[in-house]
């Protein structure tokens, strides 16, 4: 009987896998994939063959050899040595890339700090402050960045007084001069013994860190708080100050001086740079403020109430309880805003700041005419930056996830 039952089970009808070629999922999936792949390959081949044909018909050469040939134009703002007529297109690419990174860095720092401030002010208890911040955010988020950039350039920085009537914004010391040719800064020249001051400053920083560490230990042990603000400040100012005075003040300034029709000496930043930094900072600070606000609101109300209940002041509630918990929600959108800042700095082309797009991809392209290579290189540059930033973001996300729970 038992044996019978077993054979019965074995004999019981099993769903037989019928292989229907047209209905089989695997066959279909492979078919669709091959179809897509062949269409894409055909498209790629079609485009490439057309391009080579067109290039041949127009007698244009291909390849990256042009990068070492000399470029005959100058950049109005550069961070490395470059002489037009001697430097190569490779140098032009590097100048443009550095300029993009340089301006993005400034815009990112300013917009992040300012955006944070605005995001916190937006949630202020003060009705008026909150509404004014709201108006700021809505106005600058809803106006195209390009209009803002052009406005700051043409409407503000180009309308500044001429060189003869330069404004001094450093209260009479002639170190920061602003006119319609840009901003002129005095550049420090370090003397031989300046390193002593630098070392003293580093020692002071280490000292302050140690004091803080000790104070934390003490507070953890006994709950006693040590006021550190005054002592740290004193240490930070006095130690390098004394070192500076003892070594005979080894620091002088390269001042911008009016010679003929323009300023010579110091560092100069063109109006296009200023306009771009201001416009990018304002636009992106409004965007960052929104993500900061959303992040802070994502922290549950109970955290705020509990912190108030143990007697923390509103400022410390924000700094010690709310912001640290809001960070995981704030940072990812903020980093993607940084990414957008880098990408939007390409709008420099509208006002002629020598970034990679306007210098390499427009002027360079007009001169050398290697459209495919030059546009490709510019895109590759941005892709590289974007990949690096998303790599950064992934690292942050992983760390936050480990800390959490």
């Amino acid at each position: 009987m038992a044996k019978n039952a077993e054979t019965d089970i074995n004999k019981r009808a099993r769903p037989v896998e019928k292989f229907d070629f047209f209905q089989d999922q695997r066959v279909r999936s492979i078919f669709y994939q091959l179809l897509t792949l062949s269409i894409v390959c055909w498209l790629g081949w079609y485009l490439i063959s057309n391009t080579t044909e067109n290039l041949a018909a127009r007698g244009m050469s291909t390849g990256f050899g042009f990068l070492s040939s000399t470029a005959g134009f100058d950049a109005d703002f550069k961070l490395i040595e470059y002489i037009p007529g001697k430097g190569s297109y490779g140098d032009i690419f590097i100048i443009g890339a550095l300029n993009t990174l340089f301006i993005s860095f400034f815009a990112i720092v300013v917009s992040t700090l300012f955006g944070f401030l605005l995001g916190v002010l937006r949630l202020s208890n003060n009705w008026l402050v909150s509404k004014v911040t709201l108006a700021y955010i809505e106005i600058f988020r809803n106006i195209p960045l390009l209009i803002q950039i052009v406005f700051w350039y043409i409407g503000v920085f180009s309308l500044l007084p001429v060189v003869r009537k330069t404004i001094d914004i450093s209260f009479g010391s002639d170190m920061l001069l602003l006119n319609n040719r840009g901003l002129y800064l005095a550049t420090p020249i370090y003397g031989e013994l300046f390193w002593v001051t630098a070392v003293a400053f580093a020692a002071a920083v280490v000292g302050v860190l140690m004091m803080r560490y000790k104070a934390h230990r003490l507070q953890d042990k006994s709950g006693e708080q040590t006021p550190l603000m005054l002592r740290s400040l004193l240490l930070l100012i006095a130690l390098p100050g004394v070192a500076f005075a003892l070594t005979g003040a080894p620091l002088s300034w390269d001042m911008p001086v009016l010679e003929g029709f323009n300023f010579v000496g110091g560092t100069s930043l063109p109006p296009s740079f200023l306009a771009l930094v201001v416009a990018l900072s304002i636009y992106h600070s409004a965007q960052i403020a929104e993500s900061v606000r959303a992040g802070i609101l994502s922290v549950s109300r109970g955290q705020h109430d509990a912190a108030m209940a143990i007697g923390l002041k509103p400022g410390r509630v924000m700094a010690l309880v709310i912001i640290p918990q809001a960070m995981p929600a704030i940072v990812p959108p903020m980093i993607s805003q940084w990414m957008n800042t880098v990408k939007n700095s390409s709008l420099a082309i509208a006002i002629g700041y020598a970034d990679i797009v306007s210098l390499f991809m427009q002027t360079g392209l007009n001169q050398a005419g290697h459209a495919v290579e030059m546009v490709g290189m510019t895109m590759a540059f941005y892709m590289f930056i974007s990949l690096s930033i998303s790599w950064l973001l992934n690292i942050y996300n992983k760390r936050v996830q480990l800390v959490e729970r």
Partner: protein
Amino acid sequence: MAIITQNKTPTRPAPLSESSVLGWMRKSLFSSWFNSALTIFTLYIVYITLQGVYIWGFADASLVADNRRACYDNSLTGACWAGIIDWLDNIFYGRYPREEIWRIDLGALLLLLWMAPMWMRKVKGKIWIGITVVAFYPFLAGYLFAGGDKGLFMQLMIAAALVALPANLINMLLGLYKEQSLGQLLHTFCAKFSRDEKVQRNLLLALVVLSIVIAFVLQYQWQEQGVSWTKWGGLFLTMSIAGIGIAFSLPGGIILALGRRSKLPIIRVLSTGFIEVFRSVPLITVLFMATTMFPLFMPEGFVLNKLTQVIIAVCLFNACYMAETVRGGLQAIPKGQYEGAHTLGLGYWGTMGFIIMPQALKHMIPNIVGNFIGLLKDTTLVSIIGLFDLLGMLRSISRDVPWLGLHKEPLIFGAIIFFIICFSMSKYSRHLESKLATGNKN
């Protein structure tokens, strides 16, 4: 120690009510000395700003003047709006022939008429309205704006649009006054002739074909004078580019997002690569690619005009951004929805089309509208590569001889136009979000 005192505590005055004006002010403006200082400081800044704007933009502004010099003679500290008023037609329509401007107005009016039922609660079949707008309106409007000769495909699409538009209007009127839809009406109409469903369906089909044939014959006579794309400009061009971009980027983005979440590795890798490449570069490089590289891509003798190149670039670029938004919506759908759809026996397209997509898109409405706003703002970039969109037109005011050097006012005017459009769009999307919230958020 006695906790209870012998004397009665004196009654304190009632606290200032927070709902009264004074109480509200005390609570939200002057709750502490710091807050009071902040309030006064902010008030001062607001006052300075508003006063400056009022004096420059209204009190001292010149509205009527022949040229910039006359503006300055009128007042030195005010805006010169006269230049804007003089150029108003150019700002809105570009260099479109003045006697043909009615075509643009008509196109805008048709779009409004077509879209109006979307906002009416009583009208049914909103999905169909949306589909017909995206599928047929661009062709009708495209011919209306561009004119010239039309190919057979164009004629068919125009005929279909000419059927869809009245159908849509009838549907709207029926919904408003009889509370039924065109579909129901046709159904009852067909049911009068025969009970057989097959006959009914054939009858309906015949009706549609007949109306399309009539529309085709009607439109065959319709001939508009051709207007070259180089004459397009101003707000009209901005809206055209943004409109085509919006109409294409949503379906394109949905397809790319589905591709990126597909189980088929090759399709997934291709879609992911495509999306990531376009998302990691700035739009201006894509536009440059379109204008410098597209001519090389095309076979010899085939010339795309600049407007088409730009539109293709804008569409590709925004489809990739839309894809990421849609993907975000897809990720928010719980797995149970997919499993439920499978148990019902729905296939891939059935699951996606009937179960997943409607929820995902509803979830993502604010982000999708945010994307549209971004697209609209991004269209200003086409002025860099030499199209005369709104910004391009505004900037060319300063090169017009009577208004030489008039920069600020046009830019501020453009900013106001964009602000009005973008701000109302974002407000509307927030309103939609709260209206569509089904209450299953925890």
